[in-house]
């Protein structure tokens, strides 16, 4: 299975999977077949139901190049820096602005692709 297919398989089970290099410990996203740091191919999946992070930037899309999204516009999308290291492109739940502390979770879309969504950390939640 390709790394992107594995990401989607985990997402289908409600898991967010990041790659971790067993040789050097680097954590990476988007997934690929080698470690971006030491180039080893000894990668494992670090699986959780969500990853904490912080919103770096946000946009609201009013235009899409793909007709399947047009009925869903406007769409809120952002860049989230995960505490684990990588920057992820995410859909944004309500009340996610730049600087918001979030948790990022994964699911699959209509085309069985993995998609990540960031939601604010709820006060009192672990």
């Amino acid at each position, binding site marked *: 299975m390709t790394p992107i297919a594995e990401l989607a398989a985990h997402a289908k089970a409600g898991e967010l999977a990041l790659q971790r290099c067993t040789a050097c410990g680097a954590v990476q996203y988007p997934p690929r077949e080698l470690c971006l740091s030491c180039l080893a191919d000894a990668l494992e999946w670090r699986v959780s139901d969500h990853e904490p992070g912080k919103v770096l930037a946000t946009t609201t899309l009013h235009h899409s190049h793909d007709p399947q999204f047009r009925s869903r516009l406007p769409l809120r999308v952002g860049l989230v820096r995960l505490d684990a290291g990588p920057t992820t*492109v995410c859909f944004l739940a309500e009340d996610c602005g730049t600087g918001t502390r979030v948790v990022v979770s994964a699911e699959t879309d209509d085309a069985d692709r993995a998609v990540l969504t960031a939601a604010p950390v709820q006060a009192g939640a672990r």
Partner: protein
Amino acid sequence: MMDYGDAVACAPVTVPYVRRSDKAAAWWLGSALRKLLEVSGVKKTQIEGLCLSSFTLAPDGPAPFVQYVGLSPRFLEFLPFGGACGVLALRRAARAVQCCDAEVVACIAGDTNGPTSFQDLVAQFSSFSRDCVWPYGAGGPNQSFALITEHAMRRTGATREDFGKLCVAQRRWAQRNPLALLRSELTLEDYLAARPIAEPLRLFDCVMPCAGADAFLVMHRSRAQALGLPCARILATIERHNAFPEDPIQWRGGWAMDADALWSQAALGPPDMDVVQTYDDYPVISMLQFEDLGFCAKDDGAEFIRRNDFAPGGNLRHNTGGGQLSCGQAGAAGGFLGMVEALRQLAADARHALVSGFGMVNYDRGLCTAAAVLAR
């Protein structure tokens, strides 16, 4: 870095852009080659080298293309680096000429734009972008640059009015350029009130995809003089890919790594530039170039825009053909637009010109940066 000796750039040509084309990319690139021969007097058999840039040439590549147009070069480069390809072509061609790998090198960039060319290109741009950006609304580069713009506005205090000032100034230059596709008057009010595309970006922040080609020649200075061609010397160039990968979001480009080397090799500085051609797929990227190339301090980009006048008659001649924002973005030719415009300005009255490029927005950032300082 070693200098470029007597290698010079000359003969800028443009195959006039059109919004849509049913011609293949090879027609645009081959027509640019024909124009190069027409304006220069160089014979086709004398084109010994070719630097080619295109996104829509597939399934053909550079070798099938030279068969298509009947060339037999002994130096052939394919440079699919988008907005950085003009400077990259120049510096490779100049080395080839300087080192006698080719006497005359044609540098050509162009693309067609059929009904779905742009969507197809964006959807399949790279594995990371296809798998980890496209599923998030398929906003394409507008989406990626909206995020970079939002961050830059927070970092510098830049406002929509600041970016609008650049766009409006470029439109005024475009009104003097018959090759620009967008020449109708654009006011700051029009810019601010345009329909939102990917906030904070609105319509006039985004280039219009189109078809077209731009090209120039690189050869020894003595040959250019014998042909009676105005030519530009190459004082310095820089190139960088995937600079600062540890930055969580792109707030600077590779120019920041290499600007000191550029100005040191040129023995000139930003104030010496009579014309400045930045890559302007979105106005925020022009601001990043002003900062990273040393026209102002980092984080001072918004103030720099406020204290300079970029329009015709102003103090800083910037994107004097109207830039991509007013000319249109003919795929890879967008990486040549600043180069051919700089060569035209140097053939007119400019003494020194800066050309800067930025290409290949992949996943969350633009990967390729390049710049050249030219002198008449």
